[in-house]
């Protein structure tokens, strides 16, 4: 009895402890093996889910010419290094590491295995066999800012921030610049929740913003909780990372959708043709690194404005960070790329633009 129980308990622990999934079956030597490291569970409906959709698109595109493996719930840090190395040892020739915190672990493993190619998402360190890729989400935020300003009756937007890092800050600034182009004196309330993912806390933040008079919720956190609160209260909101209309059928205006599939397909194709090269890709709407979800819950004229703006950004005619960009202190920010801020300034953005009546944490 005691033995069977122990065995049962051990099996249970094993079954639950290993959060890895291996897709596709038969092993063949000529197949290209592609590996993925995910930060969250594939069912997070946000960041990791979008990467998983792109992996599925790869499988659909290349069928049995490739074999894909993913490891989910891999914490950022030393554990990640082991996970990446595990994928290398399993024979993967192209490995996507899909979170900022995997940057150093990926680099370490890349140096150790020069014949394997690595693709790191949203980082800035590269090597001859390690590329980076990310998306210009701030372009989408600019469109959202315009829509928000049109749709807000209160003239106050509510913004849920995760961490005050440049990516999030540039998103807030792009939103405000977009909103100001419609309503110059628009206000924004910002709440930092200091987490990427805590549905309860995100919902609490959304409630607090609405209770304080904001009527449009924007978020840079991963769960659909805030969307749901907006929907419940008859207010409007923007989704994040993925399609959230299901959680806010009457609330979602649009959502920034991470669409990694075209990039993943291009890179796998290059790997197969032997043309893979180290690259630094920071794609925007023009290269379809992300898309906007359908514009919903808004009048036709607002929709038209959003579509026009999207077309202008895609065509490169409209730059969200076009000079002059005024800082919070009222001084003009140095214009390093002639008529707009250069990529370095956007990637390292650590100031609020004029019109944000708040202090950035830690400044």
């Amino acid at each position: 009895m005691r033995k069977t129980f122990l065995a049962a308990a051990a099996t249970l622990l094993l079954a639950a402890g290993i959060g890895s999934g291996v897709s596709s079956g038969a092993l063949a030597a000529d197949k290209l093996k592609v590996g993925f490291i995910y930060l969250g569970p594939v069912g997070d409906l946000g960041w990791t889910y979008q990467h998983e959709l792109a992996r599925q698109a790869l499988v659909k595109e290349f069928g049995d010419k490739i074999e894909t493996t993913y490891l989910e719930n891999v914490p950022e840090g030393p554990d990640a290094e082991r996970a990446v190395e595990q994928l290398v040892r399993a024979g993967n020739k192209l490995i996507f590491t899909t979170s900022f915190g995997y940057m150093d672990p990926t680099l370490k493993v890349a140096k150790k295995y020069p014949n394997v190619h690595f693709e790191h998402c949203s980082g800035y360190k590269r090597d001859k066999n390690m590329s980076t890729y990310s998306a210009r989400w701030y372009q989408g935020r600019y469109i959202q800012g315009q829509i928000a300003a049109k749709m807000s009756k209160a003239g106050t937007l509510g913004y849920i921030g995760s961490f005050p890092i440049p990516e999030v800050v540039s998103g807030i600034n792009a939103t405000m610049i977009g909103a100001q182009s419609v309503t110059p004196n628009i206000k924004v309330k910002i709440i930092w929740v200091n987490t990427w993912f805590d549905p309860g806390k995100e919902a609490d933040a959304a409630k607090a913003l609405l209770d304080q008079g904001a009527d449009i919720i924007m978020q840079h956190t991963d769960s659909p909780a805030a969307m749901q609160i907006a929907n419940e209260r008859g207010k409007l909101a923007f989704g994040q990372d993925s399609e959230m209309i299901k959680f806010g059928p009457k609330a979602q205006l649009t959502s920034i959708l991470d669409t990694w599939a075209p990039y993943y397909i291009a890179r796998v194709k290059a790997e197969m043709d032997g043309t893979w090269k180290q690259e630094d890709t920071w794609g925007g709407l023009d290269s379809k690194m992300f898309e906007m979800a359908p514009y919903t819950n808004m009048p036709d004229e607002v929709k038209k404005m959003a579509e026009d703006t999207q077309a202008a950004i895609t065509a490169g005619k409209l730059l969200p960070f076009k000079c002059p960009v005024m800082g919070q202190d009222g001084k003009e920010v140095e214009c390093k790329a002639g008529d707009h801020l250069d990529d370095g300034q956007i990637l390292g953005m650590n100031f609020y633009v004029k019109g944000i009546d708040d202090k950035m944490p830690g400044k």
Partner: protein
Amino acid sequence: MELVEAIILSVLAASTPLLIAATGELVTERSGVLNLGVEGMMIVGAACGFGGAWLTGSITLGALCGMAAGTLLSLIFAMMTLGLAVNQVATGLALTILGIGLSGLIGAGFVGERITTAPHLYIPGLTDIPLAGRILFGEDAFVYLSLALIVGVWWFLYQTRAGLILRACGDNHVSAHALGYPVLRIRMLAVMFGGACAGLAGAYLPLAYTPFFIPGMTAGRGWIALALVVFASWKPARLVVGAYLFGAVTILQLHAQGAGIGIPSQFMSALPYLATVIVLVLLSRARTGGSTAPAALGTVFVPDR
């Protein structure tokens, strides 16, 4: 005034899962067992609670599913620590890891599905009273249930003979055993009660708080519940204070940020934890001699045959 009411309502909702989970753990620890698996039992409760409600369309059945799941998981813990006398700390931690994995597996089928949240009470006349009405008579049933639960636990622990015996097991299991009380059976029941509460607390999240299931949605609330039990120095009344204090600081810091009060948000996010530490220090200074922890807490008991 409306803002005050809104804040209080948010605090009630934020505190309720903490209070329910901590109530269960308080009873478990009072019997002398330290179960660190609250987070794991909560997340499995969330997955099963959501699944139950989604399949049956009933919030009540969902809550029962969550409780049943939490209880089942706690039985694994009971068998390991009470039956096989395995180390409680290690088993509890393993239970959390097990629960997180298991919940992902259970929940995989209904990630992205939606349910309608638990209805809020509405008593004509009473709920319409300004300010107090919505707070006292207008929240979902879980909020009031959690308060009834802690009052019930207080009454059980201090007003009944069974409660006295349970506390005796937690303070000195050898004596309780010598007096002829079935220490292990009592502890098993206490562990199961803790599991049911953790399961219910977990189920509260998808059933009433954010009506969807996502792996990892408890986001550390189980650990906070564990800390609250220590914070409350194993006393039910203090537990209520602790849970609402924690909820209040959490919500108020969000509001302070929204209002543009210029305090760094990182500091604000740490406030609930800081408040906990400060109160703990004050309590331990005010204490008159000795620890208030159950004396046999976390120690293994193997009855001589």
